[in-house]
């Protein structure tokens, strides 16, 4: 996939821009045309792999399952919560998945079943598994990257995207 990156990074930058996005996209196109030989259409968003993580039947409430997404170097958890949460997947709206690399300095988060939070032994940051990975307290400047889930009729759970940049990479798909 690495051959895609140069193009994709450019798209990512545009995606980052808020407000004047259209005007800027125009400006970017103008710059690109100065080197027409290399210009090629880039997709407007990353192509994420669709990875089967588990089947609903494999999950027990409040017992996180270790996963890797979008690739083997990016650890996460898949978690069935006791109640439906906003952004939860599955028929009961209670399944969520997050990166467990702390978006502060990349230490591994651990799950506290006691209050359904993810905690960082690095510098004590905490994230709420029930509120979309919101940082309860900590040093990260974003909430926890949350994986986009799809559950099919068989109950198979697929990850197909991610809400935020994962620690330690310039692009979620490397």
């Amino acid at each position: 996939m690495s051959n895609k990156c140069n193009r994709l990074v450019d798209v990512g930058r545009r995606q980052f821009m808020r407000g004047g996005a259209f005007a800027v996209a125009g400006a970017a196109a103008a710059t690109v045309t100065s080197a027409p030989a290399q210009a090629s259409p880039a997709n407007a968003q990353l192509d994420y792999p669709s990875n089967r993580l588990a089947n609903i039947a494999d999950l027990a409430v409040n017992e996180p399952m270790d996963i890797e997404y979008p690739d083997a170097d990016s650890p996460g958890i898949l978690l069935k919560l006791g109640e439906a949460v906003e952004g939860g997947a599955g028929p009961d709206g209670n399944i969520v998945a997050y990166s467990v690399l702390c978006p502060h300095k990349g230490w591994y988060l651990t799950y506290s079943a006691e209050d359904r939070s993810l905690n960082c032994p690095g510098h004590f940051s905490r994230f709420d598994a029930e509120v979309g990975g919101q940082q309860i307290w900590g040093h990260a400047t974003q909430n926890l990257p949350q994986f986009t889930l799809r559950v099919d009729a068989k109950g198979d759970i697929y990850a197909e995207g991610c809400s935020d940049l994962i620690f330690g990479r310039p692009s979620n798909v490397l």
Partner: protein
Amino acid sequence: MAYKRQIDRLPIPPADAKVQNVTCHYCIVGCGYKAYTWPRNKQGTLENNAFGINLGEQQPADGTWLAPSMYNMVRQNGQDVHLAVVPDHECVVNSGLASIRGARMAENRPSRVTGTQQQRLSDPLVWRNGVWQPTTWNDALDLVARVTAKIVNEYGEDELVVSMFDHGGSAGGYENTWATGKLYFDSMKVKNCRIHNRPAYNSEVHSSRDMGVGELNYSYSDYEVTDTIFMIGANSLETQTNLFLNHMVPGLRNGAKFIMVDPRRTVTVNAAEEVAGKDNVLHLAITPGTDMALFNALLTYIVDNGWTDNDFIAASTFQGGEAVAEGSSQPAGLGSLNYAMQTCRTSIEEAAGICGVDAADIVKAAEWIAKPHDDGARRKCVTAYEKGIIWGNDNYRTIGALVNISLATGNIGREGGGCCRLGGHQEGYYRPSDAHVGRPAEYVDQLLIKGGGKVYHVWACDHYKTTLNASQFKRVLKKRSDMVKEAMDAAAGGTREELVDAIVGAVNAGGIFVVDVDIIHSQIGQNAHVLLPACESNEMNLTSMNGERRMRLSERYMDPFGNSKPDCLIAAGVAQHMEAALRDLGNDAYADQFKGYDWETEEDAFMDGYNAGNPEVTYERLRAMGNNGVQEPVAGYENGQLVGTPRLYADGNFDRHGRDDKKALFCAAQWRGYAAAGKAREAENHNFFVNNVRANIFWQNQFLDQDSDFVQDRFPYPFIEMNAADMADLGISAGDLIEITNENGATQGMAYPTDTAKRGQVAMVFGSPAGSQGNVVNPGVSELILPEYKLTFGNVRKLADAPPQARAVSFKSKEYKA
């Protein structure tokens, strides 16, 4: 649900990106960062980039990572460029750590491309025809100068009231404190002035200085080699984040004990317990405002057990009884240890009663501070304090009582010691003498409330959010300002002379003409008549020093937003227009006082001020010293390096009080209960102690974060931590909007259930744009006009059910769970 950035890629800084030194300007710690900038149409690759690492590989923990908040696109020399501001692994202050504030420096820059911080002021604004109209610098400064010159020329300089920063980082720094100081203390002798966070122009630690002890005397490295960290009224994990993580945590890992004095349990206590183990952490959750009784008992116990450092006391402290008698500018007597003990002597049992903590815990604290090791070696102890006592009960005596302990145990000027305030902003004070201000200094808020002052210049202060007695202050200032606005509206269409006359007429009738210099249109700025747009650090070059006196040059990597300017050049512009206006008024002698501001750049202001007093220090040399800079005072320049001073008073000579004998003095700290006017009665008549607290996420940059989706999503309203049983009694649920009231006014916030909150105590975040805690702080101050924000009492009631934004946030404990 939590705010999602929906960003999954960022541009890569190319190998030839421009790299500059940045000292984070948000808090006192002054962490080092590197700013990378590169052209709009260029980028690096995974293998070949400015970080020199293979970005195609997942980076390990603590590795280099450009977080989305560290990226933006800004203007540099008129061009849009990519910007990445990344923590510097080589900086000894933070060793590559970023905090939730500093890591957002790039994102908190104004950008017309990405749309960030569009609240920043880009042009001077003048109140005209009922609205603020953008105008030129010349037009705005001319109006400011003509009105100001007329007032000071005809009615004297006491009619000009000034609020101005005195710190480093952000708005301050040596360049800007010098320029404003030169304008108000040299060209004029303005005495009715105050500082951003207190209602007078004064020190927050007068007693420490009067005792001979400058308040920033250690090196951060002292925490790493000490036996005990003794922290009072501070919450360093949140407010000096990387000082705690990069220096205190290693100290705790090296076996240091940790003592915290704070009525509230904070995440700092929690983290210290995680690192050092509960047995090595002692939290003295005292009754609010009783710190002095605790310190006096600790000192008494240390003295009575013979744990004092007698050689140090003999060599470095005053021996002859009373040195300075109590007086109007000297709230407590100062002298030898024996002299002070006559007043300070307090038994452990007495203190336990006053402070509401176990006698055994006070004894344990005394042992951890001063009991020699088993082999007889003296214990090293770093003492660190901040707003809990600076803004607490009886500032002068309380801080004096604390410094007594450090002096008696020989813990100042030595490795592993120090007795320091932790600080808020960085420091960066360089001004002409302020002796004319006097001591006690004028209580400026009261002066304004009583109708004093005709012209008011405000520099980077938003007292509506951050002063005491804020309800009344706002009401009166708004009314007085509106009188001038109405006069200006009525003079619409007239000449400049007619406008000036209309303004002067209105101020003579009780109004006030307000000029606000700021980076945004602040709340107090709503009642200004002229707004002058300033820029921040890195939109200009700025020098400051951090809490261990480490001075750095934080480099300009982008242009000021729009037509905004460095404060120092704005001050120069005011001075130049004052000169012209005074000449027009026929007062040449007065006009001549405003010469000497022909600066083109901030470096010119630096050379005119700081460099004139410290000729070794130049921009070029500071730039070469990089993010590690040099610790002040600068002792010389050798082998291409500035030579600094790691620790003050290493020679045992104490001189902050200016005494020729260079002997430190002890403070006769007499416990008097709640000393400031109205506090004891307020405590009796209300159900809750209203603590005034800071939060990691936005302390020191909340004014920018009102424009941050990430921050607003977490705390859409100012939080008020509250015990669940108290909430139940009052019918309050998590996220409900609640009101705190007392005789001074009311304020509001969002209830945050907190299992560690004591019953009858709430903790409200300070300085919020959405709820000013100062509304309920009474006007009572100490003898030297220090506010007591921390000592506030009120009642609580529910205003409304949790609004949707509040319902969507997490209300879980802030404490780490292993």
